[in-house]
């Protein structure tokens, strides 16, 4: 069975500092990986997905199949980045969806 692990429940950085939210996964095939974000009092929403290879709100994430990781990075954190971040895995054909337990990011002024 697949598994997604986000080792940090809480992460706090100062505005302008780099930030990295870690995500490790276990799955024998080639999954699709996503980062979802939940801002205060809002619903979960997609931040980015690995197949698009794009930068959203300054965030990027690279899929490392060798290390089975999909870490989320931003070079200069902003206060508005404060939110809950969830890493998610989707199996390619079974469509089974698995989420990590999330990391709460706080960006201090």
């Amino acid at each position, binding site marked *: 069975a697949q598994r997604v692990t986000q080792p940090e429940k809480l992460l706090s950085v100062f505005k302008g500092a780099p930030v990295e939210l870690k995500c490790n996964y276990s799955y024998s095939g080639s999954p699709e990986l996503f980062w979802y974000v939940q801002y205060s009092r809002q619903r979960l929403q997609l931040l980015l997905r690995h197949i698009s290879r794009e930068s959203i709100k300054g965030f990027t994430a690279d899929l490392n199949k060798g290390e089975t990781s999909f870490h989320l990075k931003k070079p200069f954190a902003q206060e508005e980045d404060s939110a809950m971040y969830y890493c998610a895995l989707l199996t390619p054909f079974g469509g089974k*969806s698995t989420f990590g337990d999330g990391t709460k990011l706080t960006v201090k002024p």
Partner: protein
Amino acid sequence: EAGVVQSPRYKIIEKKQPVAFWCNPISGHNTLYWYRQNLGQGPELLIRYENEEAVDDSQLPKDRFSAERLKGVDSTLKIQPAELGDSAVYLCASSPFFEGGGDEQFFGPGTRLTVL
């Protein structure tokens, strides 16, 4: 576009009572998911529908949980009887397609269930 709609937003019941949650996905989305999210944890998949067919209900506790998606649009998730451990946020999500690959899930606001 209202997005995924869920009701009620909050529900407080006593244990052993039944409860039902309703979800209306985004128009045209064939895939519908029900998740349970316990405090401090990520969403846990309960059931996934492709149109009206439940294609993955392996994590649905079938002794007390049931779900349906008549006509492949709206869906209802029911718990009968509820237990204290069922207190959680129940999330519904929909996705525009699933054809050999996954796509973005659009989430509803969730229903917060408290079982006393």
